[in-house]
């Protein structure tokens, strides 16, 4: 392919009543990024295109935008890669999602900044600095717990494609929650409780739908989704009894007592007797459709070898006190297409050793 089409979201509130798209035809050049393509279109064809940029090295986060429907840094992705990935001759660039566009690819950042302010995204030291003038010290394992989260460049790619934010703009969002985790989990920080309460207000932290778009979008492998869960774990450890905590307890009990979750009794256990009454019409509907395992009302069936699970459960509870789980490093999110027939091993013949 010698040329490609760059389809750009255009909107000037001083002139346009509605946004529109304008397409520019550009040569395919090896190594050309989307940001470079935007510059070429601006310099050679239309000086009115507006977009934010700064470092051009995936460090500052200014050029985050939606490219063919997914948020990323325009300075990080190459045109040839995108044309191949989507098997197309057109690359569409839009402002990031879930925010208000101001002009062309530039969006309103105030809304995000206001959200960030709620969790005080700065270090509030627990203790006075060391008297000898050295820096605050931290155990390597403790630092490891916040290492990836500290890499956030506030580009808002994660906020752009967040499904929970799409449904409810009051959700603080992965960038804000992840930043709250970065400070709340810092052993040198003195505002852990304050930060946790800020994200738990109106159960906001629990609105996350676990879709993992944020982690997938993040250009810096900050693991925003995982940080949300880590924050929820911290909240539970601090004694906050959230619906998520109750939910987890039910799962743990069912795994111990029968192996599988008892979905029939879940509403009553999750929400109490009032919840069960509220869910009764739904339950009846499910019964009429034959989706109810009646045995579940009386505890239901148990998995085989349950005694093995119970032994393991008790031993795991003891062992966990001495285990320091390391955060997994993503090490280059894998986008490669693995949709190919792989060599199959006949385990029966190899004894599972290959």
């Amino acid at each position, binding site marked *: 392919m010698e040329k490609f089409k760059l389809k750009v979201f255009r909107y000037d509130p001083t002139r346009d009543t509605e946004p529109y798209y304008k397409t520019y035809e550009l040569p395919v050049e090896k190594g050309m990024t989307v940001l470079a393509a935007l510059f070429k279109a601006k310099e050679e064809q239309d000086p009115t295109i507006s977009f934010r940029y700064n470092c051009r090295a995936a460090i500052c986060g200014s050029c985050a935008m939606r490219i063919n429907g997914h948020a990323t840094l325009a300075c990080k992705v190459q045109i040839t890669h995108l044309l191949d990935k989507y098997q197309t001759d057109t690359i569409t660039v839009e402002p990031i999602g879930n925010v208000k566009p101001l002009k062309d690819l530039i969006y309103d950042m105030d809304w995000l900044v206001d959200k960030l302010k709620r969790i005080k995204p700065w270090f509030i030291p627990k203790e006075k600095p060391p008297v000898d003038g050295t820096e605050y010290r931290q155990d390597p394992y403790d630092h490891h717990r916040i290492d990836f989260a500290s890499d956030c460049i506030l580009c808002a790619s994660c906020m752009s494609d967040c499904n929970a934010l799409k449904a409810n703009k009051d959700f603080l969002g992965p960038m804000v929650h992840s930043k709250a985790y970065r400070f709340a989990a810092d052993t040198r920080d003195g505002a852990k409780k304050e930060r946790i309460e800020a994200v738990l207000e109106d159960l906001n932290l629990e609105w996350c739908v676990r879709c993992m778009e944020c982690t997938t979008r993040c250009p810096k492998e900050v693991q925003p989704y995982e940080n949300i869960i880590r924050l929820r774990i911290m909240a539970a450890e601090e004694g906050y009894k959230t619906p998520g905590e109750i939910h987890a307890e039910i799962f743990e009990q069912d*795994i111990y007592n029968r192996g599988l979750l008892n979905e029939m009794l879940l509403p009553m256990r999750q929400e109490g007797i009032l919840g069960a009454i509220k869910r009764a019409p739904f339950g009846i509907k499910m019964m009429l459709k034959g989706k109810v395992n009646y045995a579940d009302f009386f505890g239901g069936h148990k998995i085989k070898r349950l005694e093995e699970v119970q032994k393991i459960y008790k031993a795991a509870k003891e062992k966990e006190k001495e285990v320091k789980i390391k955060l997994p490093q993503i090490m280059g999110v894998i986008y490669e297409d693995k949709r190919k027939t792989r060599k199959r091993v006949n*385990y029966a013949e190899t004894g599972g050793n290959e």
Partner: protein
Amino acid sequence: MAELKYAFYTGCSAKGVAPELYNSTKLVAEKLGMELIELEAATCCGAGAVQEKDEFLALTINARNLALAEELGLDLLTICNTCTLMLREAKFKLDNDPELKDAVNQVLKEAGLEYKGTSEVTHFLWEVIDGVGLDKLKEMVVRPLKDFNIAPFYGCHIIRPPYLIGYEDPDNPKSIEMIIEAIGGNPVDHTARLACCGFHSFWSAEDKVTLKLTAMDAQSAKEEKADFMVTPCPLCHTQLDAMQEEAEERIGINIGMPVLHLPQMIGLAIGLKPKELGLEKHVISTKEIIQKVA
């Protein structure tokens, strides 16, 4: 052809609120030449809930689930996106952290088990493509679904996060479309194709998030004139099918979009009867689909 034999991990939903998935999977798999050895001693994967309360316990129970597949010398096959993710996550952590693997194995030893890391975690969707093969599937089609516009709904945990799943590009997956085309159907491109059904925030944000997403997803398929949606995940199915009427009420719109499990759709194309596949068990009526294939 290599042996298509798997350790079958059913998960909780197929044994609870989605019995039609369990039955249709077994029927379809048998017809496609897949042998499923059910792991009757496997536990719930924790579904992300246990993981956020007790990470080490969650890892250990899933290490046990994986060890059960290893006992059989087989890859572990799931029919639920979230189970796939939880099991793959456990495997990723254990395979990349020898100290953690050792700690987990010390616990498993109490029950005479050991996690070695020899079995892969795979999903029915992937094995229809990689194991059975699309050419063989095409040959088996006796009732091409050519009169149907079918809206794929992937569900989050079969494409994201790519560092744990990595089967296909999470920005532009094609596996479900490939299967729809192989059975003669017309895949519909809709805006919620890769969206979230909201299932996992149901108990904490039912009104504020979950039902809005459910309505937006089903509406997106309707806007593109789909006859039905299809999903490889029972949790997405429960949310989109069983909760669709509640979602409609909250949003004040009428949708009525049927949602099929992936094996049900394949089963229709390879000649199984709608009743055998449990199509009558859906909350959103599948009558029009049944009439069309009659």
